């Protein structure tokens, strides 16, 4: 510990003192590979609206969450073995025998839940301030795709420890494909690579989790940021800051990303990490929400746990699936509950972006869809009986009514006048 501190300190000292002699090297490289000017353009000179509030930190936090998953994930793969015989025990090896293995694994399992927390807040921010409206339609759609990829990544990862919940969750989700007419059952066998969820299935889930989806997520995040930086950030007032620029083309209502927002986000990131590690050290299972007790038992194809429930971040979709008393329609609506968001930029007909200047109708619609989503999330973790089932049917109806009503409500709503410039408060 002390030695590594000493070495780090010495390395920083050397770099700080030697760096000035290599000033020309950076420029030499940059002329041939414009990596430094690229970073400066996007992390420093990027014109950010001056009124960005704390809601805008969730995008940066999502990147931090992604980095944490990648680092801890690489470390986990060093010991994890993706076979039906060894998967469960290799996770136990990591937890009990490998130095700090418990820490790396709990960071990874806590990391996914907090990533979803951050992403859901990030999406809510977009809904609240109308970040999906023109010219940011593709940006919004890439975000919906990212949510879908994140869910696929989380699901394939959830199967890997090969505990009871891993096994039965993978079985339930794969069975959804059997609702496809005619070829459904063949597709299930094809996806499983076996007549039942087995070690073959586990191994391909491993491939998708570690290489496939994670690579797609990285690529999509890159595109997401490229799209954001080419059209510019929206802001809490929904004002188009590009309309008023100074002689140099700098938007009058913008400040450079560094130092204003980098410095603002650093303490927020530290706060995030603080909460993160309080959970990792004191409540890694988070009362059964982040890691379920049933999953500490090895997968057994002969015994289904009494109460199957999905991870909390997938439970709203699961509640929708269960509330519809028809297999094919249930699976379809579960899919539609995400796909429909792709069309939001064209369903919302209001000329105003931010809820700050929208009337009561749009606000009610937003509260309804968010409220029913949260309610569905709660109900998805409860057994589908009695009042729980009635409630989830009501919540499902409310959730989907948003997509039907938003064109009407946003069209007839009494909006306020949006100021031309970001108002001084």
């Amino acid at each position, binding site marked *: *510990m002390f030695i590594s*501190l000493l070495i*780090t300190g010495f390395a920083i000292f050397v770099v700080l003192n030697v760096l000035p002699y290599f000033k020309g090297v950076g420029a030499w490289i940059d002329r041939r590979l414009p990596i430094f000017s690229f970073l400066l353009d996007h992390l420093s000179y990027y014109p950010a609206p001056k009124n960005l509030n704390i809601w805008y930190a969730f995008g940066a936090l999502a990147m931090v969450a992604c980095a944490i998953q990648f*680092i801890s994930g690489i*470390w986990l793969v060093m010991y994890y073995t993706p076979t039906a015989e060894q998967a469960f025990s290799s996770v136990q090896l990591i937890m009990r025998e490998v130095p*700090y*293995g418990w820490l790396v694994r709990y960071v990874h399992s806590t990391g996914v839940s907090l990533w979803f927390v951050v992403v859901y807040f990030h999406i809510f921010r977009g809904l609240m301030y109308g970040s999906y409206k023109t010219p940011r339609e593709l940006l919004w759609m890439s975000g919906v795709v990212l949510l879908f990829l994140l869910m696929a990544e989380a699901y394939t990862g959830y199967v890997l420890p090969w505990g009871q919940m891993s096994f039965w969750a993978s079985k339930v989700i794969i069975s959804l494909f059997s609702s496809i007419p005619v070829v459904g059952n063949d597709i299930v066998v094809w996806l499983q690579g076996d007549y039942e969820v087995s070690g073959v299935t586990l191994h391909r889930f491993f491939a998708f989790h570690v290489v496939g989806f994670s690579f797609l997520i990285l690529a999509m995040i890159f595109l997401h940021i490229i799209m954001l930086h080419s059209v510019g950030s929206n802001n809490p007032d929904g004002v188009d800051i590009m309309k008023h620029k100074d002689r140099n083309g700098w938007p009058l209502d913008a400040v450079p990303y560094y130092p204003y927002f980098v410095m603002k986000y650093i303490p927020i990131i530290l706060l995030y990490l603080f909460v993160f590690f309080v959970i990792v050290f004191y409540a890694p299972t988070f009362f059964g929400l982040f890691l379920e007790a049933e999953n500490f038992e090895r997968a057994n194809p002969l015994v289904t746990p009494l109460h199957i429930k999905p991870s909390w971040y997938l439970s709203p979709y699961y509640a929708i699936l269960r509330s519809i008393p028809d297999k094919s329609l249930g699976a379809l609506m579960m899919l539609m509950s995400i796909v429909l968001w792709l069309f939001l930029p064209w369903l919302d007909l209001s000329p105003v972006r931010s809820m700050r200047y929208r009337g009561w109708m749009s606000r009610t619609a937003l509260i309804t869809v968010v409220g029913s989503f949260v309610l569905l999330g709660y109900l998805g973790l409860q057994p589908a009986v009695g009042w729980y089932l009635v409630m989830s049917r009501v919540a499902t109806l409310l959730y989907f009514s948003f997509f039907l009503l938003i064109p009407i409500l946003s069209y007839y709503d009494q909006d306020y006048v949006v100021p031309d410039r970001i108002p001084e408060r």
Partner: protein
Amino acid sequence: MSVKTPENMGPVDELKRSLLKKTSVFLGALGLAGIGVPLLSYLSPNRSTREAGKPISVDVSGMKIGEQKTVLWRSKPVWIIRRSEAMLASLGLVDGKLKDPDSDVAQQPVYARNEARSIRPDFLVLLGICTHLGCSPTYRPDPKSVDDTWAGGFYCSCHGSKFDLAGRVFKNMPAPSNLEVPPYHFSDENTLVIGDGGA
């Protein structure tokens, strides 16, 4: 509270700025070390690997004179060779052709730093890994079996390094030093413990 603008802020407090900068660098380094310790420790051998790397006991009672026995200790080959009187006599004859005849380089525990490079001259214990690039040399006890002046020893087929019957390297060989002697002791007359030098 009045708003601070570049006009009314006054001169830059360089001392404060430098203090803040150094504090940030120090705390950042502390954070990196905090991340580094678990991530780097994770890479070192885990508890089951360390458990598997514990000393092993070998029964040498049935070994014939001149016989070689190879055992695995920490996944590496360890040779046990019961040397004859003739083999031990050959050690003194090749001294002049050796790079390090007196075992000055610390390739053996102190109790094996003698001409026979062993605790008991009749039993040679060596790590069967060439000090050049890690191949495992072959035991060639028969005189003249490798070349005309060969008095018996170990020959590495990878790059041609030659060692005598105490694992000492000959001059002008690719291998830089004598073969390594692992820590060992005899717990009784016939039981060899490899990996532990004893009390």
